[in-house]
């Protein structure tokens, strides 16, 4: 395979950069970034990964990267690529190990002043009722084989049926929290990893965060989403845990064989894939959807325990009014219809570290969002801020209805640990009014705010480029880390 070793990038405008087509690339690359973010990518292999994705068969439109792009495995993190349903492929490396890693946001009737006096017991309650850290598990929600299969089939709906949420929650989740999952396509190894992990945060960059609305950019939309100045919110960031990682591993093995069987030449083995029309692809999609359902149920269950904590500390009325703003996936592949060269075309959109951002009027949105667009949740690092946006027609026209997913790392874990070694990061954050509860000191050190790009800069790019619209800024006051 001819893979260009020297990547040629040219600036299109203030927020867009073109990666020129060369060698075996089937299309060009399109990177959203300002000059400073682009400069930061020097020495990082993520631009080469944009090039690698452009080699895959059946790619429609450019190989896209969001401003939070960084070096991943196979696809870059922050990558979006669409593939024709007949000519294209699906690649587990284009979804990632943590299938349907995503975020959800709850709003409450409380204000910062209500919560500050009880922040310590609130953080302690969250830390003890929502297990975090490596290998975290729950003894109170242990799933037997039949129940686990129901989770894999039904997603968040299973959780609501079992009393861990409300019917109304479902319409505030991407795809209503349920994709056509096939439990039979999920291996016993994956199921074993999923038996006790439902309702757990995990580790790394996953978290449960208490914050408040610090700034509003779109009054009307913020009001519709129930986001009021100083209003307390809860952000939950997690995915499909060990079950999802194992599904990805299992199907990477399958796809290595499939790529050879179907004569697909790959610039990186981690991009192994199969034609969307093949039995291998159909089976992967069934297993991936099942893992995505596990992730939807996982976040739904954690939201239930957030409500329980509110009930315990602030009373039943407050817990009752803790409504879901939205829940989005940022590691997924989905069949969607998009307009390509003036015609509707069904494509499989891979979003790896990218968020769906459907515009006002899209038929997949619940009525409550139909006139404002899909809420988009963009968490930042644990020391600064996060953002709520909505989807735009610009995203639908240019990025297959996608936008960024977070801040994106700019510093290696090794560098971050070195920088944090002589510091007491939890104390530093506490002095800034942010209480940390964490299973591992090393995780906190690796996740220091300086390790990430400024998410405001990332969000300003997507806002400026018209592939997302800023609605509100949230500031953390407490974070549970793995």
């Amino acid at each position: 395979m001819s893979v260009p070793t020297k990547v040629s990038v040219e600036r299109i405008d203030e927020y867009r950069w073109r990666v020129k087509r060369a060698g075996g690339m089937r299309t060009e690359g399109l990177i959203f970034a300002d000059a400073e973010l682009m400069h930061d990518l020097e020495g990082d292999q993520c631009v080469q990964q944009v090039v690698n994705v452009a080699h895959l068969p059946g790619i429609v439109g450019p190989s896209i990267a969001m401003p939070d792009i960084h070096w991943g495995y196979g696809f870059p993190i922050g990558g979006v690529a669409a593939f024709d349903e007949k000519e294209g492929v699906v690649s587990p490396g284009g979804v990632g190990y943590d299938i349907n890693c995503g975020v959800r946001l709850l709003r409450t009737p409380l204000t910062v002043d209500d919560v500050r006096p009880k922040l310590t017991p609130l953080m302690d309650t969250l830390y003890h009722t929502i297990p975090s850290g490596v290998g975290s598990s729950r003894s109170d929600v242990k799933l037997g084989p039949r129940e686990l299969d129901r989770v894999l089939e039904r997603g968040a709906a299973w959780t609501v049926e079992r009393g861990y949420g409300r019917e109304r929650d479902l319409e505030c989740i991407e795809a209503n929290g349920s994709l056509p999952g096939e439990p039979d396509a999920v291996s016993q190894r994956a199921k074993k990893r999923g038996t006790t992990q439902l309702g757990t945060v995990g580790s790394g960059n996953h978290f449960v965060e208490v914050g408040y609305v610090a700034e509003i950019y779109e009054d009307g939309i913020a009001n519709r989403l129930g986001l009021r100045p100083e209003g307390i919110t809860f952000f939950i960031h997690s995915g499909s845990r060990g079950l999802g990682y194992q599904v990805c591993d299992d199907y990477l093995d399958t796809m290595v064989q499939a790529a050879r069987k179907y004569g697909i030449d790959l610039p990186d083995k981690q991009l192994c894939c199969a034609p969307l029309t093949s039995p291998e692809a159909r089976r992967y999609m069934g297993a991936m959807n099942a893992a995505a359902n596990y992730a939807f149920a996982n976040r739904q269950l954690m939201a239930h325990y957030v409500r329980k904590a509110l009930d315990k500390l602030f009373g039943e009325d407050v817990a009752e009014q803790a409504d879901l703003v939205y829940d989005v996936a940022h590691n997924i592949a989905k069949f969607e219809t998009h307009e390509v060269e003036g015609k509707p075309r069904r494509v499989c959109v891979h979003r790896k570290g990218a968020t769906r951002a459907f515009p006002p009027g899209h038929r997949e949105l619940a009525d409550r969002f139909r006139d404002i667009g899909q809420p988009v949740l963009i968490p930042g690092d644990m020391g600064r801020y996060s953002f709520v946006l909505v989807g735009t027609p610009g995203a639908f026209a240019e990025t297959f209805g996608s936008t960024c997913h977070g801040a994106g790392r700019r510093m290696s874990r090794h560098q971050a640990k070195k920088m944090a070694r002589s510091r007491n990061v939890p104390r530093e954050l506490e002095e800034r009014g942010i209480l940390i509860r964490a299973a591992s000191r090393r995780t906190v050190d690796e996740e220091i705010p300086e390790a990430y790009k400024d998410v405001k800069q990332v969000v300003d790019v997507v806002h400026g480029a018209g592939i997302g619209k800023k609605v509100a800024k949230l500031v953390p006051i407490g974070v549970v880390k793995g």
Partner: protein
Amino acid sequence: MSYSFLPHTADIRVAIEASSFEELLQDATAVMRGLLAGECRVEARDERSVIASGEDPSEVFLGYLQEVLYLFETDAFLPASVTTERFTGREAVTRIHGETHEAARHEHQPEVKAVTRHGLTVERRTGGWYAEVVFDV
């Protein structure tokens, strides 16, 4: 024992040099021990048999590391060292020595989600073997 951590923005990328494939697995086990238990001591109190197979040494190497991770996640088994009883190029028969993770003795580490194929290199070089592998964390 010779391994080093290479630059990577988000994940853990490791290079290992060894005089034999058996030593390569031994060094890779030490890397995993560090990722799963930090600098805490891991005793060889118990053992697990692992047979890793694949079409070439890189797939054998990958399969071995994936199995070590799986044993940790499903059985809380921490690796201390490994004895390779047989290596054929397409299969490695091993016994992993280690013990069960105990929160009081073993420091919590960030989760290792997977051992990836991204940039995976396992090859014979003059005087031994060289491997490069990226762990998704």
